[in-house]
């Protein structure tokens, strides 16, 4: 497994905390932390395996730091890249768009040629609708710190195992 880029906002709180846990779960693997608030598109080209941390804001939106960045990546070819996405959401308070941001991100990068890895089963989640769901599974790792915080560590552990295999 080559070097992994772990992209998230260093200004974020919950997402940054989860990124830290994921970072630790990849012990023994070189993971470089990249601050999305200041990132340039060239930095994406430095990695063949990337993990993106993306919470869902409001009623199903990307946070500003990702939303304002994506147009810069429209012309980038990601066809030799593997991308895994995790995101925080609230399946009770925002059941209509639980972790939509995962779906927005994976759709975008898939259209740019990336291979999306780290699909995750729906079991254990209760929500109404999510752009993160495709073919009966999540396209990344949804985490719900508002309602299921006690499941977070186990979910990360399981997901990291999946991602590790698919990054290889």
């Amino acid at each position, binding site marked *: 497994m080559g070097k992994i880029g772990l992209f998230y906002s260093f200004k974020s709180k919950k997402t940054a905390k989860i990124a830290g846990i994921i970072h630790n779960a990849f012990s023994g693997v070189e993971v470089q932390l990249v601050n999305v608030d200041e990132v340039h598109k060239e930095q994406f080209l430095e990695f063949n395996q990337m993990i993106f941390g993306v919470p869902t804001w*409001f*009623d199903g*939106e990307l946070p500003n730091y990702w939303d*304002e960045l994506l*147009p810069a990546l*429209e012309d980038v070819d990601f066809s030799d890249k593997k991308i895994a996405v995790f995101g925080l959401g609230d399946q009770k308070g925002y*059941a*209509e*768009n639980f972790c939509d941001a995962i779906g927005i991100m994976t759709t975008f990068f898939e259209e740019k040629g990336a291979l999306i890895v780290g699909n995750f089963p729906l079991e254990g989640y209760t929500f109404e609708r999510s752009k993160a769901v495709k073919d009966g599974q999540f396209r990344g790792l949804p985490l719900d710190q508002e309602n299921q915080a006690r499941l977070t560590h186990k979910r990360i552990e399981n997901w990291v195992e999946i991602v590790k295999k698919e990054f290889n």
Partner: protein
Amino acid sequence: MKVLHDMPVEKIFTIKNTDKELLKKWLYLMTVGRIIDEKAPNYLKQAIGWSYHAPYAGHDGIQLAIGQVFNREEDHLFPYYRDMLTNISAGLTAEEIILNGISKAADVTSGGRHMSNHIGKPEWNIHNVSSATGNHTLHAVGVARAIKYYKGKGVAISSQGESSVSEGYVYEAINGASTEELPVIFVFQDNGYGISVPKKDQTANRKVANNFTGFKNLRIIHCNGKDVFDSINAMTEAKKWSLENQHPCIVQANCIRIHSHSNSDRHDLYRNEAELGYVLESDPLLKFKRMLLRYERLTKEEIHEIVEKAKEEVKLAHRSAMASPDPDPASIYDFIIPEPYPASKYPEGIHNFAGEKKKLIEGINETLKAEFRLNPDTFIWGQDMANKEKGGIFNVSKGLQQEFGPARVFNGPIAEDFITGTANGMSRYNKKIRIVVEGAEFADYFWPAMEQYVEMTHEYWRTNGKFSPNVTIRLASGGYIGGGLYHSQTTEGTLSTFPGIRIVYPSFADDAAGLLRTSIRSMGPTLFLEPKALYNSPTAATPIPDDFEVPFGKARIRRSGTDLSLITYGNTTHLSLKVAERLSREGFNIEVMDIRSLIPLDKEAILNSVKKTGRVLVVHEDKVFGGFGGELAGIIGEEAFEFLDAPVRRVGSAFTPVGFNRILEAAILINEEKIYIAALDLLKY
């Protein structure tokens, strides 16, 4: 199969491909808007005005977008009280916004009559809407009906906050647009609050637009109302789709409310620091500027230049608006209701025609048909209006649909507010249009339409004479049919308390025909009350000249006398005539005056009758307490006291609901015997 709500929205405008001049224009409009939005509270602090200001900051993307897709030549726009940037984006100047805010005479919306922040420009089809938030959805549907009928090229765009979607009339509007397949765009600007009420307390669905997913012919688009490009793309798609398909569309725009609801609200009482912080971080204007810089579409210097230009425009606008005159207090009686059709063929509303007698129902039916033949821009709808041989709940409109077709004569849903509100809306399309509605199956069921009734009475005054709905509201009224509580009500006591509408209540076939003709031909709204107990009554039947017309405000003496005046209208005209006849056999000479028209009222005729007889009995079917007779008695007492030989008396129904059992009904409604006793008392006074 295409799932309408999942259809993609084409990304026509992006930060990278949008023309630079257009980006500069958008930034300019957004900056002008934001400067005024932030400056508005200062006018209140300095006691200049703008006592109601609902800041739009946080809605910038969607409001810019609404104004940009609006075409004043073809579309109709109904902005709500938070839509300041929508108006600026649609073309209003900073000065026009400030003139509205500080309620100056030159305010293009209403000349300072309407509440500040309710911005519009009727001559551009940017309609001046009510403070009853969301009720303009019905007007948008009504005008869209006209757009479709006349094959117009535009759409109606209605804008509102997400909380006002809770109002029942919004459901009625969307249901109607879906049923009639009309080109309306309903924009829900969702900032999460109705003043302090979070949207979870409005409806179970976080995205209220999704409550409507089961509606046919309706597309729902969600967008980020904080993002200029997402909003412009959503509105562009909505308009294109609505025009191409002639169907309605909802655009739900997720916004944030950066400030309090208005300047009478304090959002720190119900929003925590974290929330207040993240809404500030999501400021749409700051995001737009960041994007312009990040993608090198504008330089810092270019942005600075635009901001300075905007500041200058607002500064000059402020100076000019401050120097502009206030409204003249002497103008308060201007534009209450437009001048009516003069009805000059029969200046007193009386004829000598001696042809075949026709029933009251025939008089109305034949007048409707005659007016519909004469004016191709006439329309009628209501519940039970037309289905095969049925035409109206009492068959008053029988045969109209067969002759004039379903586009001009059609059924409405069981939604009185919709029936009335879409009449108001449709008549906005052009001044030729004349609309008749059966406001409800029975007058008793008109109460759900009260809000649109009030609205109709406000329009002409509120727009400073720029718009008045040309609508005749027909209501089958009154009792004496064994109808109980909800098929017996007389409503004029309540409905006559609103300035801005004419009210007539004929009691004979010829007057019904003549007043209906005048109502339909007049500008402005008329409430046409029909005594349904008399529809087929031989005593109400009269000869009717084909061209008969009765001017408003002309009472008719149905029996001349010198001893006592019975002032009456509707069903009780006939009871009064019978009493007069009975008393004449006892040697009294009784005058019976049918006022016919409650607003305007023929005061002169009433006072002349009082001067002649010196005794007055006001007779009406409605309850004495709170009935229209109180006004009549008050006027007579004030203006003809010295001519009176006895106190003015009133008789009417008991102050109870109307019972269903005929024994109860008879005990409650006014009858011949009660009128007789009161009249005799007065004669002997």
